């Protein structure tokens, strides 16, 4: 029914953004990192800038790098970009513009038994906020290195680590225990994504945690028309994420709930600024 419907269109947008983020195909084949000026601008989604195909900077890596230098310079530029992305799109970025989210959604399509959301997954969804505070903010400020990139980021391993190590002999000689650990993290994320919808986004992604604070104010996204809503919770049941209410912090704004609502109480935000005046 939905073959060329809403979900299909969303998938096309996800694919286009993944290709746009990673348009340096020639560099990817040679294992050479893109060096153009545009790479000084962050892309909105999680996409490792050490991926030879990447043509933009990763916002999370750039933030950790900037926080690592906070003693010498305040991280205005990267924080400004993240504020701008958050204001314009919020977690629409997670639902539409994140290549790693797309990979997980495709993995979830593998037909197996699936683990449904429950009380435990709801609790686990708080873990990403802990990772944001500890690995993305505190450790880079205190010790000066990007702890999330170093110990966790599966996107960095998949998009940057594996292609570069495979094509570069000197990097192969440097591979050690941290690389093995990161491969293990990547494998865990990949396997879990087959059984749990967007497991990394829900439980571990600090960028999603960061953007979640903008969901209420973002210019694009979904909203509930409180006058039409009869609190039937159908939207919550239709949602793959651990939401308490459509559009809350856990919502990746994918819009699946819009179709599920019989009252047509969920809609895309529009004209709020105009209605105001």
């Amino acid at each position: 029914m939905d073959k060329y419907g809403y979900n299909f269109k969303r998938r096309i947008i996800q694919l286009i953004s993944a290709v746009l983020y990673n348009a340096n195909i020639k560099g990817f084949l040679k294992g050479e990192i893109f060096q153009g000026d545009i790479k000084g601008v962050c892309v909105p989604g999680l996409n490792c800038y050490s991926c030879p195909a990447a043509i933009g900077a990763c916002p999370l890596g750039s933030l950790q790098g900037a926080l690592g230098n906070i003693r010498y310079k305040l991280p205005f530029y990267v924080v400004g970009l993240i504020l701008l992305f958050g204001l314009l799109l919020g977690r629409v970025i997670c639902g539409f513009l994140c290549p790693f989210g797309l990979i997980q959604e495709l993995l979830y399509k593998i037909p197996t038994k699936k683990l449904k959301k429950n009380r435990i997954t709801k609790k686990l969804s708080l873990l990403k906020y802990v990772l944001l505070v500890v690995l993305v903010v505190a450790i880079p400020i205190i010790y000066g290195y990007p702890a999330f990139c170093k110990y966790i980021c599966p996107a960095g391993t998949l998009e940057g680590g594996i292609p570069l190590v495979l094509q570069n002999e000197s990097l192969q000689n440097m591979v050690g225990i941290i690389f093995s650990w990161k491969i293990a993290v990547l494998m865990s994320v990949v396997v879990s994504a087959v059984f749990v919808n967007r497991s990394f986004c829900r439980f571990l992604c600090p960028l999603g945690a960061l953007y979640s604070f903008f969901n209420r104010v973002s210019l694009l996204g979904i909203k509930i028309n409180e006058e039409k809503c009869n609190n039937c919770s159908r939207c919550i049941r239709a949602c793959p994420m651990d939401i308490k209410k459509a559009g809350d912090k856990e919502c990746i704004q994918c819009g699946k709930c819009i179709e599920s609502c019989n009252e047509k109480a969920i809609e895309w935000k529009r004209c709020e600024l105009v209605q105001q005046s």
Partner: protein
Amino acid sequence: MMKNIKKINLLRLIIGISAVAFIVIGAAQSGYHDTLMKAITVCLECIGIG
């Protein structure tokens, strides 16, 4: 309801102005250049080597 929208719009305005100001100040402080330099070299930590 209307009051709520007013509050949200005010917040949007503050975030928007802050975002633009931060980007301009950051770019003037060579934030763009720093990000570029980091992004065009292999980040050993990111790929699990460093």
